[in-house]
């Protein structure tokens, strides 16, 4: 369980906080989506939830704090966070380690650093590559991958660590629909083992079928928090700068023209 209690945060060199009074709990095995307009604070929330802000990048909490499994984390070293909360950055190329010569080594790096035995490291690495359908990239050089392939490798390396909590900032931004589907399936599988997941995404179509709960951020505050279906169907969503899922958009376009959206039921 990961809890943000009344958290405010400001970046180094800035007087104004970019997050205010964030109260958010991720239960074990829960999949929580975060949506909001650009600059609403989604990426910052991800950095705070995994302890990198302020722990590694500086700045300061202006209120509240982070708890993991009920333990306050204030003052804990960043390497301790790393074993308890995984983080996938928005830009996968900034996450590839740069110290490995093959995708297999890249994905194995995390489990090795957790101190796992070689046999388990290899088993987890193979599993993570297979889960995302990228076994054929195993011998490729990480730096020579396409944007989407790089993103899948980053997610595979996170899966291989099997973190109890995982924060993902737009994990499918560069993926094709098949990659997006495989990542969705993998995240569901991970949640079923008890991992709590926080996923910031603009793709509401992905969150629609994946998340239990969705949180809406606006100007650094949580303005809505509820079951995914209710939040993604909320008529205020567009006003918060979030494109509703295509299912919801089509239904409202039909209603606006006097047609019964029921024609969409059971279709695609």
């Amino acid at each position, binding site marked *: 369980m990961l809890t943000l209690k009344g958290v405010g945060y400001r970046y180094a060199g800035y007087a104004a906080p970019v997050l205010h009074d964030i109260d958010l709990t991720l239960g074990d095995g829960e999949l929580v989506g975060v949506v909001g*307009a*650009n600059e609403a604070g989604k990426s910052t929330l991800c950095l705070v939830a995994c302890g990198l802000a302020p722990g590694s990048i500086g700045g300061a909490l202006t209120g509240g704090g982070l708890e993991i499994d009920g333990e306050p984390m204030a003052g804990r070293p960043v390497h301790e966070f790393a074993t308890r909360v995984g983080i996938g950055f928005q830009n996968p190329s900034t996450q590839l380690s740069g110290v490995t010569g093959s995708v297999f080594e890249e994905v194995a790096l995390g489990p090795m650093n957790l101190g796992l035995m070689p046999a388990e490291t290899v088993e987890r690495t193979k599993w993570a590559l297979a889960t995302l359908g990228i076994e054929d990239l195993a011998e490729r050089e990480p730096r020579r991958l396409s*944007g*989407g392939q790089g993103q899948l490798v980053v997610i595979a390396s996170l899966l291989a660590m099997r973190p109890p909590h995982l924060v993902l900032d*737009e994990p499918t*931004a560069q993926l094709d629909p098949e990659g997006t589907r495989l990542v969705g399936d993998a995240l569901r599988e991970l949640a079923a083992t008890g991992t709590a997941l926080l996923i910031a995404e603009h793709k509401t179509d992905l969150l629609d079928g994946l998340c239990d709960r969705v949180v809406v951020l606006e100007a650094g505050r949580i303005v809505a928090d509820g079951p995914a279906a209710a939040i993604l169907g909320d008529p205020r969503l567009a006003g918060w700068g979030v494109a509703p899922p295509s299912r919801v958009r*089509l239904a409202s376009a039909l209603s606006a023209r006097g*047609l019964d959206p029921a024609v969409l039921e059971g279709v695609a």
Partner: protein
Amino acid sequence: MTDLAVVGVGFVYPDGTRALDSVHLHVRTGERVAIIGQNGSGKSTLVRQLNGLLRPTEGSVLHDGVNIVDRRVASLAASVGIVFQNPDRQIFSGRVRAEVGFGPRILGRSGPEVDRAVRSALESVGLQDAIDLNPYDLGYSRRKLLTLASILAMDTPVLVLDEPTTGQDARGVERVQSIVHEVSGRGRTVVAISHDMRFVAETFERVVVMGGGRVLLDGGPAEVFAEAAWPTLASTYVEPPRAARVGARLGRGSTPTEASLVDSLTSPG
């Protein structure tokens, strides 16, 4: 104006990976063309051939009918501006103003012309208030818009966008859409790579589908997203936009956009 022709182009990376295989593509001046297809299908490799960043290992690339094999990247950059997928591989200045001004300055524009180009490009992407900031004080989505502004400021005859909508919210996507229309309205060519099928269907008049380094389909959105093409799309992991899937299920023919679907459902018959 620049008419682009990719003729029988193949490309193999130094590590032996074949990324392009006998690609033929002719893009006429002023066209809006989307390139879609699965990850690793050769989309980014293809657009890098257009301005000489990568050179074909087979075949040739022509600008206005002339092979570009002997032209340098610096000179081709004046014709084809590419906005990369990853903004952080593009940004290098400490100030937004300098970042956006670099391109027009390199093209030899005068000081006042550079200033005008910078302001107008920043206005198009909505970053006029960020002109004196450090690019790295902007969030990812605004850094992406900044790299778009840098290329817009060069006003190249051809604009190439690699995944322009990733990281953009609803308003950001609309902004990119209107920029594509504005640029093409001025007779410029726009080529964009995207996985966002709604954006593709609503914004482009022509869609090129790639798979395994080859062109699998090439046509208007209604043709490419029509039910008959779905097996080909599936082979390169492209899912038609939801409006197209709904239209086909309801027997309304090819309705690639939400607007076309709603129109077909509200029209008699």
